[in-house]
């Protein structure tokens, strides 16, 4: 190899490195503003929230650094543990219904073609509505006195109207159903998109191989839908775990604390009792649980053949 050839090779390598550096710089410059925004809006407030959780704050008066006192008080409170449990019941109860329902809807919508899209648009209305409007709407639907839709239905079937939102046993299932009604169509949209990504040839090959619908679903649809499912389950988990507005509007954490989830406890402690130090401690705990659950999903669903996560 001649010297000229070596020089040319070194020059081109340098040129490539220079282009790579420039590309990297341009990339960083483009991502920079968005990154700064995320840091300013999400990261800094999160750290500030953690800092506030270490202080005694009441009604916007700072009474000083208290270390982990807010956390110790929180975990010594049996109502806080009950709230964590109820958050998990609400989250997983809603997920257990919403995800299969969304998957079934997505599959149905794909079969229905254009009419499926129209149906999905209609089903999406509750998701687009303000949670407080949803709460008011359902409050009127469920009101057990004359004028309530569900109460009238009960009466039509000869059953006395039930106070679904004030019954200590029925309040949580009622909230779960309303939560599913509100969110499943959004999940169905993502899954419809996910189903569209699966190559049709695979289904044809499965049919040639003699796979039944259940086997096809288990061996082709589900694994290849894993990335979409991961997104859906993660987003719904965050959404359900942090749900508070419909709870405020529908039950106010009652009856007898039966719908006091951790997010409602955060609202109540921080905005009703105005104990902002402990409220921030609850927010930090909620953040940790959210992260834990999402890490768990990534670990489980990321192992699926289609799961790139």
């Amino acid at each position, binding site marked *: 190899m001649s010297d000229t050839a070596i020089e040319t090779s070194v020059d081109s390598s340098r040129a490539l490195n220079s282009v790579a550096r420039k590309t990297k710089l341009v990339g960083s410059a483009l991502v920079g503003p968005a990154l700064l925004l995320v840091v300013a809006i999400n990261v800094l407030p999160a750290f500030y929230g953690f800092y506030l959780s270490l202080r005694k704050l009441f*009604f*916007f*008066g700072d009474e000083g650094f208290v270390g982990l006192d807010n956390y110790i008080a929180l975990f010594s409170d049996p*109502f806080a543990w009950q709230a964590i449990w109820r958050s998990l019941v609400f989250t997983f109860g809603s997920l257990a219904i919403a995800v299969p329902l969304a998957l079934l809807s997505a599959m149905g919508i794909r079969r229905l073609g254009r009419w499926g899209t129209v149906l999905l648009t209609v089903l999406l209305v509750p998701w687009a509505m303000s949670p407080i409007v949803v709460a008011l709407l359902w*409050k009127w639907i469920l*009101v*057990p*006195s*004359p*004028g309530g839709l569900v109460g009238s239905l009960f009466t039509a079937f000869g059953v006395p*109207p039930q*106070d679904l*939102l*004030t*019954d*200590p046993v029925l*309040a949580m299932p009622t909230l779960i159903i309303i939560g599913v009604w509100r969110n499943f169509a959004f999940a169905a949209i993502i899954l419809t998109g996910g189903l569209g990504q699966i190559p049709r040839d695979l289904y044809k090959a499965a049919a040639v191989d003699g796979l039944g619908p259940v086997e096809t679903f288990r061996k082709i649809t589900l694994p290849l839908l894993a990335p979409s499912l991961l997104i859906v389950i993660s987003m719904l988990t965050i959404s359900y775990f942090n749900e508070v507005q419909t709870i405020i509007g529908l*039950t*106010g*954490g*009652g*009856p*007898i*604390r039966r719908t006091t989830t951790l997010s409602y406890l955060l609202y*109540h402690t921080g*905005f*009703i*009792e*105005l*104990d902002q130090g402990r409220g921030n401690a609850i927010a930090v705990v909620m953040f940790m649980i959210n992260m834990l659950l999402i890490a768990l999903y990534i670990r489980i669903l990321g192992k699926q053949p289609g799961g790139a996560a």
Partner: protein
Amino acid sequence: MRLKNMDRRELLKLGAAGMLLPALSGIARAQDFSGTIRIWTFLSPEGQSPREVVLRELIDKFTAANPGVTITVESQPFQELETKFVAASAQNRAPDIIWMRDTFLNLVNERGALANLDEHLSEAFRTEALPDLYQVFADKSVIGGTRTSLPLWPSPAQILFYRKDALAEVGLEAPPLTWDEFILVAAKLTSGDRLGFGLPTNDNSVSAFINMMTGFGPGIFDAATGHFDVTGPEAKETAEVVRQLVKAGALSPTLLNAMGDDIQDQFAAGRFAIVQAFAPRFEQYKKIAAAYDPEQLAVSPWPAFGDRPPAVLLGPYWTVGLSAKSENQEAATAFIESLYTPEASMQWAQVAGLVPDRRSVQSDPYFDTPEAATINVFDSLLAAPGALTFPPNLPDITKVFPVMNTALQELIGTDEEIDSILSRAKATLGW
């Protein structure tokens, strides 16, 4: 003689001019006001409720007299007014005027968010209007020598509203005024879809349990600490009454999540015969009555325990404060004063059915008419022997109502021992 006549005329002119001078100076003062006055209240100037109509009229009147002033009403959810105000004050963006509940006065004042009104109110207001207000309310606004606010709409606050037609069914004109008799009557009033008695059980700004306890008189509150004995004999007897009301069918065991608004809406729909309600909403209750004739609506004090007088708890009520950080304090104070003129008091009374803030206007012939009958009842309740206010230093004001509401829910909806329910409430409060 001619000269004499001339002199008299001149004297009369002089006298008239002299009489006009204060008015002219008033106009001159009014015309000095300019800028924007921001108000935070739960009322909306675009709203149609009687109180909103009056507020709108008063604003229009003030801005017409003070063309340089713009008034901006920024409606807020009523439970958030005090919190948002303190937060906004800390960030120097508080409104000039704040509507707030008297129970929060102490806390808001401690945060330095309220101006001392005594330093801003006009001499005329201090000498004429202040002594004309109901002293029980006006005095409560003075904390450590600072006049933190002016009470608005003197009223018995949480009181009982009832349907006269329902009471007539059991041969009564009004609910009994002792709990023993009340339980029996409320049970008889439960009929079909209608319940005898309705209480807000999950409203963070009121506690039906404490209202019931006031049937023992003002002695339930410790004068030094502001506490009441959550596990004491009075609380236990109150809890027994709740249980008896449920057992007798007067109170629904499933009515565990009701807010004040829920009770209001369901009362309008005919679900209750007697309810706990906020007195200043009386006209609104009449307006939305759907299942009965609005003329059948009436008010009653709370029943008492034993031979004590019927109870009237004067609070929480609304009170109006001036921001310590307002940059337009003089104009804002002038607007606050305009809410308490005799004319304004008449408007609050005639349009919204509220007890006038200025006691002197009650000599107006309007108060002898049937339209003012309810106001007269409210007024008599304010002076009733069983009338009492929350102590100014009621501790844990942000916790006490929700905690007692949960205890009430447990009393209504479970069979748990009364002692353990009350002990848990006490432990939660840390008292």
